[in-house]
């Protein structure tokens, strides 16, 4: 890869370092926009004139919503790569499926945590058992935690790549439920419908949310890239270890012993040699 650092085991390249720096800077800018420059969500009741809204808790949504969307994207990429594993059976697809699943699971955990922190002041509870979206998201997290547990069962990923692909494809069946739960079970969720689809937000609020999507897009890109390279190096290390072991074993054995082991007689060996 052009610009790749030649030190052994290094996953950085000029491009990925630049990407990492831009992602980090974007995170800082997003933090400033979300926590300092945008205003709190305060509305006045039309008849009583009382203040209501999400107040400062709304700031958490600038992180929560983009992370949720990028979580979907990561898991869908994992599903696509898993199909690639089953159809093509090449390591590239498997390493991609593993990388995107790991990044998606981290995002899913963060979505649950940020959602819980947001829910405490707004819903007055850390956790709502009756909420369908919360439940389906938790199940999604557990499904992919199982996927990652399966991947850790052996140091050689080639042994369970097709099994892992099946687990991932079953797990992503939960994504439509998570995504559509707010519309399908309207009376079984505290989650609001998308304010973005109904264009209820504008100006700096809209810009910050869009900037959040861009920022987390870059972060996920960078994380997936790094995780992919680590996965690729792990594969290379295993192949190298197997190759070295075979070479070492061969060097311990003379040519005659090898011929005897595979049943070639001295005459046959003589005929074969020029």
């Amino acid at each position, binding site marked *: 890869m052009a610009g790749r650092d030649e030190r052994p085991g290094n996953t950085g390249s000029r491009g990925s370092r630049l990407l990492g720096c831009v992602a980090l800077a974007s995170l800082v800018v997003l933090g400033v926009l979300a926590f300092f420059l945008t205003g709190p969500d305060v509305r006045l009741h039309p008849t009583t004139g009382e203040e209501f809204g999400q107040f400062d808790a709304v700031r958490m949504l600038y992180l929560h919503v983009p992370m949720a969307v990028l979580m979907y994207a990561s898991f869908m990429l994992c599903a696509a790569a898993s199909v690639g594993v089953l159809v093509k059976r090449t390591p590239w697809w498997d390493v991609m499926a593993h990388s995107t699943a790991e990044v998606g699971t981290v995002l899913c955990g963060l979505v649950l945590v940020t959602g819980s922190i947001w829910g405490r002041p707004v819903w007055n509870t850390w956790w709502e058992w009756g909420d369908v979206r919360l439940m389906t998201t938790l199940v999604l997290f557990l499904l992919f935690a*199982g996927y990652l547990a399966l991947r850790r*069962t052996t140091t050689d990923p080639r042994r369970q790549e097709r099994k892992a692909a099946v687990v991932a494809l079953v797990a992503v069946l939960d994504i439509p439920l998570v995504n559509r739960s707010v519309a399908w079970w309207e009376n079984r969720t505290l989650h609001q419908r998308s304010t973005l689809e109904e264009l209820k937000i504008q100006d700096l609020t809209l810009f910050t949310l869009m900037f959040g999507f861009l920022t987390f897009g870059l972060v996920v890109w960078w994380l997936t890239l790094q995780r992919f390279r680590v996965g690729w190096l792990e594969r290379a290390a295993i192949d190298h270890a197997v190759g070295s072991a075979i070479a070492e074993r061969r060097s311990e054995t003379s040519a005659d012993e090898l011929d005897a082991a595979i049943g070639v007689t001295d005459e046959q060996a003589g005929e074969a040699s020029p």
Partner: protein
Amino acid sequence: MSEVRRFLADARMVAARDLRIEFRSRVVVGQVVPFALLVLVLFGFALDADHRTLRTFASGLFWVAVLLSALLAVHRSAALEQSEGTMDALRMSGLPPAALFIGKATAVFVQLVLLEVVLLGGLLVLYGVQVVDPALLVVAGLLAGVAVAAAGTLYGALASGLGVRETLLPILLLPVLAPVLIGATRAFDDALGAVAVDGWAWTGLLAVAALIATVVGALAHGVLIED
């Protein structure tokens, strides 16, 4: 038509083999069913043996006991293929993987139905529940049994051959069965008259779960036993 008949004959043969092994070894009857009853009794101890509380939560406790016991039954079903190169022999036999899956899932299903019947007896005697809608109870019990057996057989095949099957199987299987647990509990709530919910609507969800688990299992089984 003859292909369908041959497929069903293959599946029946596998199911009969698994059930014959179970009939002779009596692992499910001798170990899994007593374990399930033990779980019911432990719930009773944990909830201070209060009849009203037990009746209120009977459906949930019943299905948690079924799922925990199903793990043992599935584990046993998958272990049958691991001994003495059975799986290699099955691979060589030319048996369609889908027929093998349907046969194994059917055997697990029969064992689960037996388990459910015994546990229901436990609910009636130990928890003092009353059955308000027997038809709903039977249909929901059977559909949930199909879903658990199909998903269990799929994940049993998936975890088999790995050194950590015992610990990996629950982590993989239980989240997949979460919708079945929710649907079956709600349907039983209605059938036992514990909570006023539309149990038949939840039974519809169980039917969808059973269908998806069976179709995905039949399609994916070939991939899993190849490795």
